[in-house]
């Protein structure tokens, strides 16, 4: 697993209080990991902070699963 993927997983485990085994690439923040809309906003903000990127709202809407977050950040992280 890439360094970015590791970091993304760690943030999700911390913020959503879930087990590492639940954080699979297909896992949806809202449907599988118990996030509500505010949790999702917080996750995106943590990704922005950790990876020093700015994720526009229209693109943030497309980040709904662990895998989508990892691919987005692998592409955009500086």
């Amino acid at each position, binding site marked *: 697993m890439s360094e970015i993927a590791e970091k993304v997983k760690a943030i999700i485990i911390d913020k*959503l*209080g879930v087990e590492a085994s639940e954080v699979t690439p297909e896992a949806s923040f809202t449907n599988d990991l*118990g996030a509500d809309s*505010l*949790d999702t*906003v*917080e996750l995106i*903000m943590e990704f*922005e*902070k950790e990876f020093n990127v700015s994720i526009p709202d229209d693109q943030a809407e497309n980040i709904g699963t662990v895998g989508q977050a990892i691919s987005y950040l692998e592409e955009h992280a500086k």
Partner: protein
Amino acid sequence: MSSIRRVVVTGLGAITPLGNTAPAYWEGLRAGTSGAAIITRFDPAKFKTRFACEVKGYDADNFFDRKEGRKMDLFTQFGVVAADEAIADSGLLESNIDKDRVGVIWGSGIGGLKSLQEECFQFERGDGTPRYSPFFIPRMIADSASGNISIKNGFRGPNFVTTSACASSNDSIIAAFNNIRLGLADVMVTGGSEAAITESGVGGFNALKAMSERNDDPAGASRPYDKDRDGFVLGEGAGALVLEEYEHAKARGAKIYAELIGGGMSSDAYHITAPDPTGSGVVLVMKNALRDAGIMAAEVDYINTHGTSTPLGDGAEIKAIEQVFGEHAEKLNISSTKSMTGHLLGGAGGVEAVACLMAMQHGQVPPTINLHTPDPEINQALNFTPNVAQTRDVRVAMSNTFGFGGHNTSVVFRKL
């Protein structure tokens, strides 16, 4: 107020600098222990006051799953913990109750000060890009405790927070009382909480010159009615009561601690922080409470005073008691439990109501500790219950709290 709907107390909860449950709190009160010590929540080295009455041995993980706990400021966590204890004590959830008729009115003078402070510090440290947490506002706002208590338990009746500085949770108790009396609810969870032992809380109260600076003796710093008192000691925590309409409580066979018979409110209309030295607003509030309760002053056994250990406030309240109670003043037991807990600000009325109800239950009045050199300006013929608890059958107890802004509140409980 003549009312057919009577209101009784059926549950108690507390998390305090003396103990993290109502029974543990009572043990600390009865033993006359001080909850004060050097501040651990931040490095107080450069502050004028470096001690406070902190809640000890509290671990949020024992009460909340990590994700939920993170969304609550400490004052909300304390509120939920104390309310849960009171609700469990009342047996409410084991009874077949209509949750649409159960409400929550909670007191907090300040709200999530730590959350406000942290988010602002973080913004200041950054490059100007706003990175405020989506949980910042819900953590900070003062109504988050009452909201969270209802969400956790599904209580869908009246729900709001009262804010009147250090009178906040007496105001919440009175508002809850009135909601039941008016028939708007059958059960109300009430009380209040505060968690302001932060850099901005301590620094702010220091700037007001309101807090004791007796850094060489934290346990001896809160000394109401003592000549050498030099200000209040900041406390934190929560006190919770379940109030219930009498017939509702009887019908489900609930244990009843006492009846809440009166609530009084008044305002000094004098100064934003200083108490009116004539005590006229305090006279008025106790008269209002007695009138609402429909009892004579001579029926009161115990007054848990506001008594914060400030040079001005303590004397004004005692003069007011002498004026309202006349000759009976010397027959009262009077004590300031803030000598032990410190001043819980918006949580004070909650924990002090719990102290009154425990005193009634155990037939014992908790003391005013650190009363070593009586202040000659204060009538020492009054019984301040100095330093050790006294045995007394407390049939009627009054609890006073007053707040910055000139808010005065007083509640009266009577044994059934």
